[in-house]
């Protein structure tokens, strides 16, 4: 019996469809379904409440505070990662002695586990015994110990640690693209009298556009939903209240308040915000590219 090519095709994609349904469609649908319930996180107690969870959160000052902190955190980290990442990639694209070694070193923060990185940073930033305060006081910049993970500086510390940890991703992506830009373009520009800055603006940046489009999209999604770095920085002491971003708040609602319904609602809201952002982003920039 001969199986038609159409049926063969369907059979071949079935495993993939199954995996996507099991790992993507089901969890997302279950999360959305949960958001309509008042449900205990672990006990089998639940009541259908319709949109009440959404209404509750829209009136919840902590939700708005988390959204604010999350926006500040993701916007600042993405901007700095992109700027520092591009600068680092441009430097690493130049020829100099030990370039390969430096390229390896730059990747280091991205390669070490987050938990290790955060533990190291917490000790470096310790107000009483940390190396950074010791250094700042020794050279006379600070007179009193600065509480880097206290109320006033924890957001700045978090942003800087996150940028340190994730900018190598931008470096890798941009450096990869830089290496494929035809040198003829630069040579022609030089012949036409273009300086370094002008070459960067008129050749390098336009060539990087597609890469940056993807990098900004991915990093925006990852930073907006970043949980581990934020959470670990405040475990065992840390002014958690002042960096309680949306993913942290969703976690707290689910696993500390034991309100799975509200936790799911927060997750769905985050999902919605990201979809809206992605749609606007695509509309604004992808259309310009004509792709």
């Amino acid at each position, binding site marked *: 019996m001969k199986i038609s090519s159409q049926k063969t095709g369907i059979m071949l994609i079935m495993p993939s469809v199954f995996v996507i349904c099991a790992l993507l469609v089901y969890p997302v649908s279950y999360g959305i379904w949960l958001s309509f319930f008042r449900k205990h996180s672990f006990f089998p107690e639940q009541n259908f409440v319709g949109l009440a969870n959404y209404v509750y959160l829209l009136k919840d000052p902590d939700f708005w505070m988390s959204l604010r902190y999350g926006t500040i955190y993701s916007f600042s980290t993405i901007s700095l990662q992109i700027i520092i990442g591009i600068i680092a990639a441009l430097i690493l694209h130049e020829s100099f002695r030990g370039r390969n070694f430096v390229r390896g070193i730059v990747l280091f923060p991205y390669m070490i586990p987050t938990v290790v990185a955060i533990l190291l940073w917490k000790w470096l930033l310790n107000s009483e015994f940390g190396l950074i305060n010791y250094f700042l006081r020794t050279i006379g910049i600070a007179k009193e110990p600065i509480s880097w993970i206290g109320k006033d500086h924890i957001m700045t510390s978090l942003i800087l640690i996150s940028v340190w940890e994730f900018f190598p991703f931008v470096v890798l992506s941009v450096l990869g693209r830089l290496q494929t830009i035809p040198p003829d373009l630069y040579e022609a520009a030089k012949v036409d009298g273009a300086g370094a800055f002008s070459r960067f603006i008129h050749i390098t940046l336009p060539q990087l556009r597609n890469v940056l489009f993807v990098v900004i999209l991915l990093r925006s999604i990852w930073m907006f939903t970043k949980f581990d770095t934020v959470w670990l920085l405040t475990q065992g*002491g840390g002014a958690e209240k002042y960096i309680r971003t949306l993913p942290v708040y969703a976690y707290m609602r689910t696993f500390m308040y034991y309100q799975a319904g509200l936790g799911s609602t927060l997750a769905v809201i985050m999902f919605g915000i990201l979809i809206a952002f992605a749609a606007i982003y695509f509309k604004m920039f992808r259309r310009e590219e004509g792709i």
Partner: protein
Amino acid sequence: MQFEKKYRVVLGMVLSFVIVLCGTAFAAQKVVHVWHTETNPLSRTAIANIVARFEALHPDIKVEAEALAWGDLEGKIMAGLAAGSPPEVSHGQPVTCAALQNKGLLLPLDELVNHIGEENIWDQIKKVGKFGDHYYGLVHAAGTSLLVYRKDLAKEKGIVEGPKTWEDFLDIAEALTTDDMYGVTIPGDNLFINILTGELTKANGGILFDDQNRPQFTGKSMMEMLDFWKELTKYMPPGWEAHGYLETFANMYGQKAAMMYQGYGRGASLIEQYAPEHMANTDYFDVWIKPHGPGGTKPAAQVDEEPWMLFKGSRNPQEAIEFLKFFYEDDNYLEYIQTVPIHFFPITKSLRRNKDYLETPMIKKWKGWLDVQQYYLENDLVKPTLIIDWKDLAEKPYLMEILGSGILKDMVMEVTKEDVALEKATARAQKRAEELLERGGYAKW
């Protein structure tokens, strides 16, 4: 033909292997899963030794003991329950024990208590796990919070008596504060702020929730407590809110702070390990009985005493009880207690009188620290986290949610770090707690 013979030999071997495997499976040991919060290497080794001796006596039982950080334990218990595969026994916060008992998820431990001898257990300990006529939790060891101070520095300032009231304490904190030394250090993380809030409320004669479960955060007692906390911050390191428990001890043995309000006996080991050798004793680091607030008459402290809980729905609960009976036998229990001797106050009176226990070098050296703990325990001055009255354990099963929510921590932060007016911060916390209790179906007002 030869092929067939070879085939038969291979088949025979495979069948024998399968039969052996099946035999092993049928004769399999009963597994008892034990989760505990003592992650330090000495305690883990002691538990491993006890398990080995138990298994040697009971070849049909296998004990799988797992040490978990306290921060992970409650979540793991809940996940195990939700998945229908809880461990046989586990440590947990007293409020967790109360919540799970309230939901009917625990099995009684009366057989274990009778085996140890009810009279042999300190009264305070019995109150933690007894609900109605049955025991649903039995504490592994108790360690009370301690007000640790630098005795040498206090002497230098002519301070020989400990503070009786919060006012005295503030005076002492001020006197001990110098350019190089903070008067007092307190952890800023959620658990310890909750611990301290409960403790100070009790010491000020207040309550956190009334009989209808309505939060009492806007009352006079809470205001006085927050005011005291705010005053204290004048003598604390500026970034205290970022300090965890271990960092506050580092402030003590690292000679950055003269007093530690939330110390524990466990810290004596840290002092021995990290303070200069000549200072690692009670001439330098001693303890005072804690002061009380303007609304209170007696000191109050918190007691760190996770009970063992036996889970309904676990596979081998009877074997787990046998293991716990073995655990509390004097020799085994002593080995466990001696791993953190100043923090693990034994639950049995017999062990507290035991000669080997009393001869433990650390116990002799830090005797004053244990005497204060015994004073608290004998006079019923200590309670578990957020428990003001013993009946709260049975009647307020939502304390676990309150603890996790961070509502109390946010309130303290707003008052001490953000200069929010007391009335505003307490009203916000009150509203949040009321909403939490209403959503959880606990509100009776």
